[in-house]
């Protein structure tokens, strides 16, 4: 599944992956720049405003009716953070018109619709978004942020993320206390700024380059097709573990622990680190699953997750409060086992099989294909899928143990259920 770089008539580049594997076509324009923490909340709000309507489809009702006319196509504008980068994407996914035989649903109509999102619905002075739209989106956005508190797992995760206290350990969905101060004008200025960012346009589907190039060239929007590269914002170790707790009205408690490793995507121990995470807590054969859940029955849900751009690992477990200390001890004990090379041949083999299978399946999803291609562009030393699998095959128990020895525990957060049952 390969992308070709295609030149449009007006001399810009886009990346095309021509395939008849999918019944859909996906067009994704991703505007990338270095993230600024003080813009995160406004960026998230901006994505809601742009998703809501635009100059051509002035209400969300009208816009969604158009998507339905386009056979339930979807258009998603989203703001994400990846390491030290802010990714602001406009993504259209719709069924390939060849299945529809509908003169109102053609590639030209799709491109016109897609480009309508770059001309938002403004006020009469054209210096702000439509006030009503801005107010509705701001209100909904505030509510979404307030409701994060209702999900104990997400709440615990965000707490650990905040406690990392690093320049780039940022909540992608923004911060509640910043929402009220965001003005309409500020949001609109941010929109204009985004359009000046380096752009990475991707198209996937059973489509030929020539007609797309022509259609894109006629859009008359001067995007910048420059390149940018990522830096990986490593989180440093801390000399001692900090413990935090909080009580909330839940019937089950959550235990969350964060670890730092300084191992990020371009590190020599990157692939051992991926295997370590699978062996520790990201599989049904993981040490945490088999001990904390299967052997001791302390929880139903326990897992670890590795952030390959900051080098952190989070472990989360939904437990009864009475198992707090026992679960904590078991988590630390299992990690120590890995440090001491107590990894069975079976565990390493299973982890390798699982990781290899996961990498092989990247080409089965248009969104993952785009995200992996983007990784290759942003981190030029990234390995191809084939080379990555070759690297994984060579990894030994000692490599994984070496990665584990680079791990330091940072914070432990316990969200305690209000009343024990």
């Amino acid at each position, binding site marked *: 599944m390969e992308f070709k770089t295609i030149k449009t008539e007006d001399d810009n580049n886009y990346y095309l992956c021509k395939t008849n594997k999918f019944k859909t076509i996906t067009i994704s324009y991703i505007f990338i720049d270095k993230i600024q923490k003080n813009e995160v909340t406004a960026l998230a709000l901006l994505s809601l405003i742009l998703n809501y309507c635009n100059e051509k489809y002035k209400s969300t*009702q009208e816009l969604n*009716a158009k998507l339905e006319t386009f*056979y339930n196509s979807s258009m998603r504008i989203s703001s994400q953070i990846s390491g030290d980068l802010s990714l602001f994407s406009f993504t259209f996914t719709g*069924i390939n018109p060849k299945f529809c035989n509908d003169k109102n649903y053609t590639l030209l109509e799709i491109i016109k619709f897609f480009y309508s999102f770059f001309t938002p619905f403004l006020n009469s002075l054209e210096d702000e978004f439509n006030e009503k739209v801005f107010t509705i989106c701001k209100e909904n956005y505030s509510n979404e942020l307030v409701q994060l508190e209702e999900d104990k797992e997400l709440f615990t995760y965000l707490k650990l993320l905040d406690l990392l206290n690093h320049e780039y350990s940022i909540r992608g969905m923004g911060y509640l206390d910043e929402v009220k101060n965001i003005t309409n004008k500020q949001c609109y200025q941010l929109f204009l700024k985004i359009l000046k960012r380096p752009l990475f346009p991707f198209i996937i589907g059973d489509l030929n380059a020539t007609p797309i190039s022509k259609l894109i060239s006629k859009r008359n929007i001067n995007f910048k097709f420059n390149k940018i590269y990522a830096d990986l914002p490593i989180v440093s170790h801390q000399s001692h573990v900090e413990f935090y707790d909080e009580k909330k009205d839940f019937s089950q408690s959550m235990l969350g622990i964060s670890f730092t490793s300084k191992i990020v995507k371009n590190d020599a121990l990157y692939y051992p680190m991926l295997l370590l995470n699978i062996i520790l807590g990201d599989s049904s054969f993981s040490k945490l699953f088999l001990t904390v859940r299967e052997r001791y029955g302390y929880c139903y849900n326990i897992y670890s997750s590795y952030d390959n751009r900051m080098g952190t690992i989070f472990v989360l477990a939904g437990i009864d409060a009475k198992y707090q200390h026992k679960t904590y001890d078991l988590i630390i004990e299992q990690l120590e086992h890995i440090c001491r090379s107590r990894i069975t041949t079976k565990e390493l083999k299973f982890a390798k*099989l699982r990781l290899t299978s996961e990498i092989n*399946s990247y080409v089965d999803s248009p969104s993952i294909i785009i995200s992996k291609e983007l990784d290759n562009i942003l981190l030029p030393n990234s390995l191809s899928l084939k080379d990555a699998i070759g690297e994984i095959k060579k990894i030994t128990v000692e490599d994984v143990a070496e990665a584990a020895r680079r791990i330091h525990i940072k914070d432990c957060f316990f969200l305690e259920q209000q009343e024990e049952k």
Partner: protein
Amino acid sequence: MKKMEYSLIEETVCKHKLENGLEVYIIPKNDFTKTTVYFATKFGSLHSGLKVNDGKEEIIIPGGLAHFIEHRIFDNKKGPVMDRFSALGASCNAYTSYNRTAYHFKNDHNINACIELLLDFVQEFTVKAESVEKEKDIIIEELRMYLDYPSTNLYLGLLNNLYFHHPIKEDVGGSEKDVKETTCKALKAAYRQFYHPENMILVICGKVNPDLILKNIIDNQSQKVFPPYDGIPDFTFEEPLNVVKEFSVQKFHVSLDKVAFGVKLAPLVYNNVIEYTKQCYLYEILLDLIFSISGKYYEEWLKMQIITNSLAYSHLEGKNYNSIIITADVYKRDIFIEYISKIFKAVDNYLPKEEDFTRIKKAKIGSFIKSLNHPSVIARELVEAYMDEREYFETMEIIQSITYHEIINLAKQISDKPFSVNVLTGGKND
């Protein structure tokens, strides 16, 4: 093996019924790297209360038993099932729902070996009292995890307002009491009854050669002996058409009130799978016409600050139950409830024009075609359709056959029926 070509969507489906009664569906998608396989039984939480025989005595199935078997079946005497899948590079999982329990895996190689393993572990159930006791704690933690979700409480609270006796109102996993009272004897008896190949389906979708795969499945199944199939006793529930309670309020850790509005309807009547599938789509299209984002009310209510952007709706239908559920996070709960009540008093008065109906039909067709992008979605959807006795691959034709007139008739038919409301509140609006 019967091969069915669906030229409109460029898909081929191979179907075969084995001598032991197991139905096998194979959908080759050779461009994809991964293959998804589901092995499912028609046994879910709705079967609780049924009597099964363990060979000696009759046992009443307690709540959550199907889910309990799903947990314990992985404890196979040949060793941990998950490990054996992992050794083949696959990840295996399972879920239980109202009318089914499904076991599934995905992999990019070793497909035959994985299918064999899937068939072998699901078709063997040796459970020990000690392991049952330990599993109870894990299942109780799982139930508690879901009970911390506002959506679970909102939904179960509403179903308890709507239904007097029907087990649809119970959590799929049962109550903590059900779990604590579960015995080895009940688990074994239910397994014997419901895990017969006649009561099961195997669906394979991905990079496969259908003939080779089927041959291996036949080889595997021909080596096993199953007791004669007694069938599943038909079950009906004596459920009145009125509701238990018209209104309830639950205190919960929510920042905004959450409202669930449910309309209780008479169960659907139909003659065949196509007719039934069409009826389900009629309901879906009707609800889309009124409540979708492109409908008249969603944006109006947003602008009036009655709701947040959280309006959701569904048609909940199955064995002896049929209801419509509307949920939202609300700023003005009384106004929201009043508006929804008015709509359901005379639904046909609130229907938009025929051109909107044509648009929604297009959207439904689009959703179906998009679902064919993913072998895992195809396999899951086919299992769900089979269990619900709906048609799947002829979805496009069925949707195309629906007329606006049929929608108007349905709107009239569901108007002025008993309804109930459940509210979750953090207390701010009280």
